[in-house]
């Protein structure tokens, strides 16, 4: 089936998320939609899928104008979508998720689970993988969950498949396998829209590329164009794709983590005997696929999670068991993984967020009273120094873009005298311009002699930013290797396979 989008415009208030976007996808091709976070790719696909109604423009299938009032209509017309955040119900089984919305029933109203099981097995066999139809989604690894999403789309005979940032949660090996599935689908005649911001993947599978920036189509590209050109189209200017940093100059500070263990309430050991040392002046990147204990590790470092065992020693002082305020007071800067829930108070102003960790005393609080003058001048300096794009320090922080929000968090954490910086996914959902800036500041912090721990799920970032890379899998350390380690070796480690060569376990 041929898909055509004509002049799609979608506005949210004054924001034009999609501005006159036109796009054609032929059956049997993989069409890449390349663009930064916030460029409007997902909005466009949600229009196609009937989740949003376009303000202008139309969707055509095989030349016929469609009017989708909801995802149900889009699905019935043969469009399947694999969302960035999986649309699976964690407490349902695979079969239940696949049948949901088009269930068949037996006489008496009983659900026909056997039919759903058969369907799951049949589609899985076609693509050569195995999925247990009776497994609960929450027990499955993300890679398998994604396959369930694909099975779900195919079980409704989707002819047009949309993949929204499908590789964000996959290991490099899983990504390769996913690309293979996509090619097989294409060869069977499906029209595929592949949304991504990762240039490597685009060049590998794309038959055609459309680049979107700020809600507009800025042009078509071919897969053989160099990375710098694609990136420049995507961002709108020349981009520095590498991080400039010199060899580490080790300082006196150090963080020594020994056999750290965190157990979640249901008894799963989410951080299992993790040991490492970070010296002042180096960046240790904790790499791994999301959900392998990195979040809990960083939270245990600053005391947000209770360690069930082990020790965290910063410059000779034990940090385990101390309250968060004390840990931060000891000179630990923390950039949490989710800035909107843990890093900032969205309803507060930029200025208020910048002083959030210093309610305790001077210069911002005297005799229990907020000192507005010092607060505002501090905020103005920070806005200036960190290039935070805001209408003013009195603006609500939730109104800033993701990149600028992250800069507020970073400005707050870096404005104190630090002895350790812990940054969890500091560039997730951040535009390329801000990524460059954030990387630069992290490297400056390192060069000032501070030990830095960065959690990243993006291999490119890990390699670019880290002096050494610690790979976590299922709560354990697979290995600690120099950042010069080849990518495929790192990829294998992310799947839990220990490297052959001896690693410099610090």
């Amino acid at each position: 089936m041929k898909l055509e989008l004509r002049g799609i415009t979608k506005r949210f208030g004054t924001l034009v998320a999609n501005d006159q976007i036109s796009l054609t996808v032929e059956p049997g091709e993989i069409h890449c939609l390349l663009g930064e976070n916030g460029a409007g790719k997902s909005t466009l696909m949600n229009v196609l899928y009937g989740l949003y109604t376009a303000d202008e423009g139309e969707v055509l299938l095989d030349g016929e104008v469609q009017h989708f009032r909801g995802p149900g209509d889009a699905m019935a017309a043969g469009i399947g979508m694999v969302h960035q955040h999986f649309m699976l119900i964690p407490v349902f089984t695979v079969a239940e998720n696949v049948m949901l919305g088009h269930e068949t029933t037996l006489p008496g109203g009983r659900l026909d689970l056997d039919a759903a099981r058969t369907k799951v097995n049949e589609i899985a066999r076609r693509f050569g993988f195995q999925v247990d139809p009776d497994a609960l989604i929450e027990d499955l690894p993300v890679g398998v969950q994604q396959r369930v999403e694909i099975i779900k789309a195919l079980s409704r005979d989707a002819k047009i498949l949309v993949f929204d940032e499908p590789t964000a949660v996959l290991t490099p090996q899983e990504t390769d396998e996913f690309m293979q599935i996509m090619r097989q689908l294409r060869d069977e005649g499906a029209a595929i829209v592949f949304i991504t911001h990762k240039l490597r993947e685009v060049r590998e599978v794309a038959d055609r590329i459309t680049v979107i920036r700020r809600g507009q189509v800025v042009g078509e590209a071919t897969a053989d164009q160099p990375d710098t050109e694609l990136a420049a189209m995507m961002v709108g200017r020349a981009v520095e794709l590498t991080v400039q940093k010199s060899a580490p100059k080790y300082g006196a500070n150090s963080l020594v983590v020994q056999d750290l263990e965190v157990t979640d309430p249901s008894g799963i050991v989410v951080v299992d005997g993790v040991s490492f040392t970070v010296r002042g002046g180096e960046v240790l990147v904790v790499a791994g696929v999301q959900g392998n204990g990195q979040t809990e590790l960083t939270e245990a470092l600053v005391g947000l999670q209770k360690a069930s065992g082990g020790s965290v020693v910063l410059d000779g002082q034990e940090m385990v068991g101390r309250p968060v305020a004390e840990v931060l007071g000891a000179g630990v800067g923390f950039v949490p993984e989710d800035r909107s829930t843990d890093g900032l108070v969205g309803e507060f102003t930029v200025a208020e967020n910048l002083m959030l960790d210093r309610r305790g005393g001077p210069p911002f609080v005297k005799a229990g009273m907020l000192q507005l003058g010092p607060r505002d001048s501090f905020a103005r300096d920070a806005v200036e120094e960190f290039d935070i794009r805001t209408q003013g320090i009195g603006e609500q922080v939730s109104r800033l873009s993701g990149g600028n929000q992250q800069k507020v968090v970073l400005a707050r954490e870096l404005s104190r005298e630090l002895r350790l910086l812990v940054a969890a996914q500091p560039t997730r959902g951040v535009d390329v311009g801000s990524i460059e800036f954030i990387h630069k500041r992290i490297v400056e912090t390192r060069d000032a002699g501070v030990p830095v721990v960065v959690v990243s799920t993006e291999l490119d970032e890990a390699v670019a930013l880290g002096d050494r890379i610690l790979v976590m899998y299922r709560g354990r350390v697979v290995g600690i290797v120099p950042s010069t380690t080849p990518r495929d070796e790192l990829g294998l480690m992310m799947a839990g396979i220990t490297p052959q060569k001896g690693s410099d376990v610090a």
Partner: protein
Amino acid sequence: MTATTNAPAAPVEVRHVTVVSRKAPIALASFTALFALLIALAPREGSTNFRLASDGDFVTLPALVVPGTATAWVCVVVAAVLTAVAFAYVRAQRKVPLWVSAVFAFALLFGFLAWAGAGSARDFPVSTLIFNTVLLAVPLVFGSLGGVIGERAGVVNIAIEGQLLAGAFTAAIASSLTDSAWAGLFAAMVAGVTVAAVLGVFAITYKVDQIIVGVVLNVLVIGLTSFFYSEVLVPSAERLNSTTRFGPTPIPVLSGIPIIGPALFNQTVVVYIMYLAVPAVWFALFRTRWGLRLRAVGEHPQAADTVGIKVERMRYAGVLVAGAVVGIGGAFYTIVSVSSFNKEMTAGAGFIALAAVIFGKWHPVRAALAGLLFGGASALRNALDIVGAPVPSQFMLMLPYVVTILAVAGFVGQSRAPAADGQPYIKE
């Protein structure tokens, strides 16, 4: 996508440790100690007669006569042994099995009754205790079933109390006017649905905080029914507030079983509806398309939306059905229990039902059992009154609420509400 599909078996497995809670043995130990203290400080003379037979049994069982205080001490010993068993389980890093708690509860209950009934001139009516347990559980079970349906669809229903009260009120009027208990039952369902519809409009369509809407609805229903009670029902009580009630309908054969027969199968139609409603709700939630979709919108409404399920429509369906179910429970007050409506006569049963929902882990069968447990606490109070137990009546009035707090606080264990429970679905 062929050879590499089943990725090389991961060498590392996630490690599990069993998180053993010390709550159970500690709670058992404190109960044992408290009970021992009670009978040590206030020993009672005489023996206790447990009356097992009632009229109409095929076999007439003799009464069970035991010496009061001695039996109580035997029960203390049994409880102490079970406590030791529980400690042994925890020391071995294992969970305390349910039978330990169950036998413990039975031992302490029996010991308490033996102690309380000692020396009383009256027999302790075992069958009546069971009969009342079932009867008093009716509004709680229907209330909790409604609560489970609503919360499974993602709408927290604090207004169960209001729905019960509205049901009781309308059932009273309808039954008085028509002289038909069935009409009262139907009217109660309509009243429950009406309150549910208001909840739905605010909570689903207008996305108002569900807790606030629920609380406001409760206050509203209390206010309205109290107003109409004194302005309309009291002046013409003969015509509007003297209901025709359901009488007991014994089920042949089953009602002749000793002890449980008369207790379980010589009840009113509403109780039999309850017996059927529990498995029916379970089947509807877990075995039908409707239930699958309902649970989907309660767990992950966005996922449901993306497969073409109308989230708001589905939630309305859940809330309205729940309203009808709760309404039946409300009818209990005026067409089963007594024959007239009275101000605020539900007396917090809706909140106990809400506790039963949580205690029952959002599962219809478990929630109904929890409702039965709470009903049992009320029935016990009545039974103790009959034998003239030496416990202040204020304390016995507290009993169901104490059981509720203990149940909800300590013994629920790990329970997980539907993921989107209480959250309005807002399309981006």
